[in-house]
């Protein structure tokens, strides 16, 4: 039981970060704090994917000398896919910040309950 808890310790860290971001997206009232929660969530997902590709005794995925064997180098595929995920995360944060600026220009506040009150 203790062996199981210690051998999969990385998954507990990722689940904790993911739930932290999830709670921030739902429970906070300020719009900027919700956006930061989304960013934390995306970072936890990226960390989880990169940790899948590790191999014991492997080195960086850059070709050293000798004949290349698949057990000598760590898996390069999650790194490639997560590059795209990082770029998508940056783009989403940039557009969301622009939308937040337009909301502030129009309603003069960034709290969710005051904005909903002035819409109705």
């Amino acid at each position: 039981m203790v062996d199981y808890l210690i051998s999969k310790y990385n998954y507990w860290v990722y689940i904790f970060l993911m739930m932290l971001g999830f709670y921030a997206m739902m429970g906070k009232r300020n719009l900027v704090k919700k956006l930061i929660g989304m960013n934390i969530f995306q970072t936890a997902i990226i960390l989880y994917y990169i940790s899948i590709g590790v191999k014991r005794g492997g080195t960086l995925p850059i070709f050293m000398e000798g004949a290349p064997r698949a057990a000598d180098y760590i898996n390069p595929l999650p790194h490639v896919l997560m590059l795209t995920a990082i770029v998508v995360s940056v783009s989403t944060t940039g557009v969301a910040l622009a939308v937040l600026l337009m909301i502030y220009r129009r309603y003069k506040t960034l709290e969710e309950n005051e904005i909903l009150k002035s819409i109705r």
Partner: protein
Amino acid sequence: MIVQYENVIIKTICRLLIPFIQLFAIYVIMHGHYSPGGGFQGGVILGASFILLVIAYGLEESRRRMSLKALTIYASVGLFIYSGIGAVCLLMGGNYLDYGRLPLPLSSIPTIRAMGILGIEIGVGIGVMAIMICIFLGIASYETGGENG
């Protein structure tokens, strides 16, 4: 929001550092074959050097060095280089983005593929640099009446 401070230390240090940051960014783009790096990483470092210029010298001073019209042209040119290389491969009889058919006078097909990779990394680097500066300038010029043109 970004007004000009009368601070000699920040201005001097930024003036000394920015050329070295840009040189390092070009190194990261060009050595994507042999070390970790590539187009996206080098493009973001190049964009960060211009953002450092805006922070040190104010917004109006950097408008003269990199206008918004030049930035939109850089972004479009970056994406155009990427699609253009793919279209050249299509014109030479292969698939889209099949770098083996590029008309380069080099020795063997793996070397031509390496040159195709270098070409598209340059396009991606220019495009990402322009977009990073665009997003920053759009958000930073909020109080002075927004973006014009």
